[in-house]
């Protein structure tokens, strides 16, 4: 069965979704990713969706689930590289991906995760703040 590869980069996990997902594949990804987080004790998850042309409510829910599940295991999730057309469609659909951090590209996402990590170390429990503080 097809699987999406998950790469480990230091304390973070990187997933690049290159194909249009059908539902079962997305569910497998959710499963694999969460297992990986718990196995490696990763502190952050980067999901690169720059090659994804369609994000519907199911896919949005999977992204939200991954974020919430990782957070319970003390890892932050950043979705990077969303296409403008996808962003507009999601807003129109009424899905704003609450609780998921976003960044323009992998590099900026990594930066964001690093700042989050430092912040987390400084004040042990960081309450889920509005994502606005990413630029501070």
């Amino acid at each position, binding site marked *: 069965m097809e699987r999406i590869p998950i790469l480990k980069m230091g304390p973070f996990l990187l997933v690049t979704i290159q194909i249009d997902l059908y539902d079962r594949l997305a569910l497998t990804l959710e499963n694999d990713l969460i297992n990986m987080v718990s196995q490696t004790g990763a502190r952050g998850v980067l999901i690169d969706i720059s090659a994804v042309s369609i994000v519907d409510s199911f896919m949005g829910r999977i992204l939200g689930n991954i974020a919430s599940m990782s957070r319970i295991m003390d890892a932050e999730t950043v979705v990077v590289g*969303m296409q403008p057309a996808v962003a507009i469609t999601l*807003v129109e659909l009424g899905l704003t991906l609450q609780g998921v951090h976003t960044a323009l590209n992998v590099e900026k996402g990594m930066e964001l995760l690093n700042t989050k990590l430092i912040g987390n170390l400084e004040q042990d429990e960081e309450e889920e703040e509005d994502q606005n503080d990413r630029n501070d």
Partner: protein
Amino acid sequence: MNTTAQVLEKNKERILEKWMQNQLSDASLRDDLMTSDELQRQSKEMLDGLLRAVSKGNHDNIYDTEFEQVTDTLRDISITRARQGFSPRETGTYVLSLKQALIEVLVEQRQDDTSTLYMEIMQLNTLLDNLSIVTFETFIKGREEVILRQTDEISEISTPVIRVWDGILALPIIGTLDSARTQIVMENLLQEIVNTGSNIAILDISGVPAVDSLVAQHLIKTVSATRLMGAECIISGIRAEIAQTIVHLGIDLSNIKTKASLASALQLAFSMTNLEVRRNDKNKGLNIMR
């Protein structure tokens, strides 16, 4: 006795001649837009098609297949004329002067048989009236296309995205924000964010005359989409009366960063990207320190 179609067919040349005469004698004819040769060619094609259709015995239903060619030609002519800037009168005269010519010829040919003449004129009347309706429908459609294209062009021009600083974009919105425009604003803004890799976008609404709940919703959508892309959006240029209406309408903008002026929004953007603007004592210029 000859049928109407035969009579008309026999006198085709005369009809065409008369028709051309009618058209050319019209003082409003724009010979700058079309040569009379071209007009002649167009008219002949049209008349040929019409007579062929009538000869099949169809006098009234112009939506039948026999008339397909006639209506097609007619549509072609009126749509070209609409685009070329002919007036409705000129376009309408085209068909109506044909009616005149046909009737004149019939009157000449049927001097001895008034009852047949009467019937024939009635039939032709209905037929050509229907054709002129087609002409107008198409003419107006052609004009509407022009309007639509212009609307697109206007919305295209009216949403410039300006790069005010490295990583900071500004987008001044001028005029009313409806859903079609929001769509274009969003598309341009998000595309520009991708192109420049900017983290912050400032949406300046000083040029928006009024903000009602619908406009506010469009703004919120734009901000949400920007956030989904991974950038932050600041709304600036909120005038006193706009602030009042927003509160009176009970619109919640608390999740969105808002500033009164573009200057203060830029300041906020600087502090968000850890930039500092300082006055340099020596030359009084602006110096940016990282």
